């Protein structure tokens, strides 16, 4: 094992990164929870995202979708400050203003696969930790794939 690897620490084990005003001023990106969206029988997806009190993160920080398509979100601001959310969605980004202790909803249309960002674009909420990921799982449709045998993967 190399010296560098020997010193390596998992994010969750490193004190002061996954909190406000710890080692960092804000909270390191992506250091919150990971949740899988639920899928309805028709393929439409749904999930709940909360802004926890004084944590300045979206919970979950990483929302995983089983595939591209339409997802309905329930949004809760449990913080004692006002935030907002700008979500990616084909056609137009989706925006919602969320005062303290508020509930809202959003509907997003996303292709797959890949990682998409969302954030609270007020003050420096994004830098403090209110930047999240929506990860779309799945593959490219067969008709768009290259005509070649399966290739070695990383």
């Amino acid at each position, binding site marked *: 094992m190399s010296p560098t690897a020997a010193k390596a620490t998992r994010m969750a084990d490193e004190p002061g990164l996954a909190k406000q005003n710890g080692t960092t001023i804000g909270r390191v990106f992506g250091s919150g929870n990971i949740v899988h969206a639920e899928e309805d029988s028709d393929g439409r997806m749904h999930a709940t995202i909360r802004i926890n009190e004084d944590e300045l993160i979206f919970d979950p920080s990483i929302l995983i979708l089983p595939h591209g398509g339409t997802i309905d979100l329930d949004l809760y601001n449990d913080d004692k400050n006002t935030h907002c959310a700008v979500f990616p969605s084909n056609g137009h980004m989706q925006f919602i203003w969320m005062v303290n202790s508020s509930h*809202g909803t959003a509907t997003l249309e996303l292709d797959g696969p890949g990682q998409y960002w969302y954030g609270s674009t007020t003050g420096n909420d994004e830098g403090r930790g209110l930047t999240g990921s929506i990860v779309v799982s799945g593959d490219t449709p067969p008709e768009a794939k290259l005509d070649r045998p399966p290739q070695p993967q990383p």
Partner: protein
Amino acid sequence: MATYVEAGHASDYTNLSDVVGKAPAVTKKLNYKRILKAREAEPHNWITYYGGYDGQRYSLLDQINAGNVKSLTPAWVFQAGTVGMQSGAGTYSMEASPIVVDGVMYLTGYDGWVWALDARTGQELWRYKHASPYDISLCCGNVNRGCAVAEGKVFVTTLNAHVLALDAQTGNVVWDQVYGDVRAGESATVAPLVVKDMVIVGSSGGEFGVRGHADAFKIEDGERVWRCYMVPKPGEPGSETWPTEGEAWQRGGGNCWTTPTFDPDLNRLYFNTGNPCPDFDGAVREGDNLFTDSVVAVDPDTGQILDHYQYTPHDVWDYDSTMENILFDLDGQKLSAHFDKNGYLFILDRTDCSLVRVVPFVDRITWGEIDANGKVTAKVYPDKEGDPVHFWPGPAGAKEWTHAAYSPKTELLYAPVQDIGATATRRRREFKESIPYWGAGVAVDGEDVAGSISAFDPRTGQERWRWRHDYPMCASVLATAGDLVFAGEPSGRFNALNASTGEQLWQFQCGSGHHSSPSTYSVDGRQYVVVPTGWGGWVEGFLPAMLSARAGSAVFAFALPE
């Protein structure tokens, strides 16, 4: 239990702006017949990517001319900006050629933006934003080169390799087709071209070991018509130029990431193909590697390859030939002109893609030599593992993808020239899908660089004039019947040159470098010259000495004072 205030349902972010929401129905009757005659019948418009199927980037408008261009002033500015995070955040750039139809401008930006603007005022009429994955594979920046319009639709490709048809009045999606595999490293940056009842696109991803292709879809409903691979499978014509054993052809590159030109009389699309892959390690792909680095004539009705001419056989310098093939007639000959990355200007007979003339167009060429008969002799190239090799032109080429122009009035070709070398050190690596597959470490020169706008006589290949610059010229040029050539600089300056002499007649500092394609149009009798600005893209590849130059994302429209 907390009591929540109702925040409602998230709405379109666009609603919180002065976007009008609707554009006039100017493209509803814009069909193939009109596009065929676009330059001559409606010179006030800029209807296709190059301003015409022939790729000349020439306009008949002459209200702005060599005699009055010194009075040219900004008429309006459109600022794009950014919201939140975006793919290749440090690489975004405005690379489009604005399309204009009867007073409405259709424009694309980085990261999935499409806009319709009032071409007279710059007022944003509608916008579309495609959600682009943050982790998409992009070799050369978060960019898009423009859109196509026809029959009430705007066609655009997305970073994640979709081709979309948008309603030209609202920006709403009419149809959406996936035509590339993002998990294989494919993406899309090309401006589509409408031909007959089809929209033609091509793939990006040549640095990731994909198999390049062009695709055609019905403009009505997005139904696929054909796909044409630019690297043949074993047994297909051209496969003899690849190793008979192994997987090289499966990762061979040859992407079509700029717009083809089209000759409706010959019924031929002229595709321009990219580098073979791995870019610099030729030993794993012995042979000429067709149809990489080539012009490939394709039947638009079937997608079948008809002819080709390979500009750089067995390329090991990353010399894509994706830049345009300009179609023009001269002395009874049907010709095409192509300024290649390898530093040579090729004049071909476009009826069969045979060579008419080949001449160098940049001062320093050390990679090899092409004689008057087209015989290629490679001299300097990455060969031994770990052995650095310096050559001119570097991998960005003596001319990048940005486009040249041809004026039928002066009968001259105008090219943005880059005189910049690079050092490549071969470093063999195994292929893994979606991982960059170059086969070398590459450092482009930061010093001892130069550039120019150069004018060439296609009859002789002789250089007629040269407007010298301290930096490589990295943006497309525009030629007009007003005896003008417009050219943007990496520094942000936008210039008008005398088309006959190269004399600089006018200049304006746009604040950020040019890496796009200007166009021109008129509305209510007033001519405008429009140029997107915003330095970015693969700057480390074509001008690393300007890697930290001012970024931006604006569109400037210039006109004479009213």
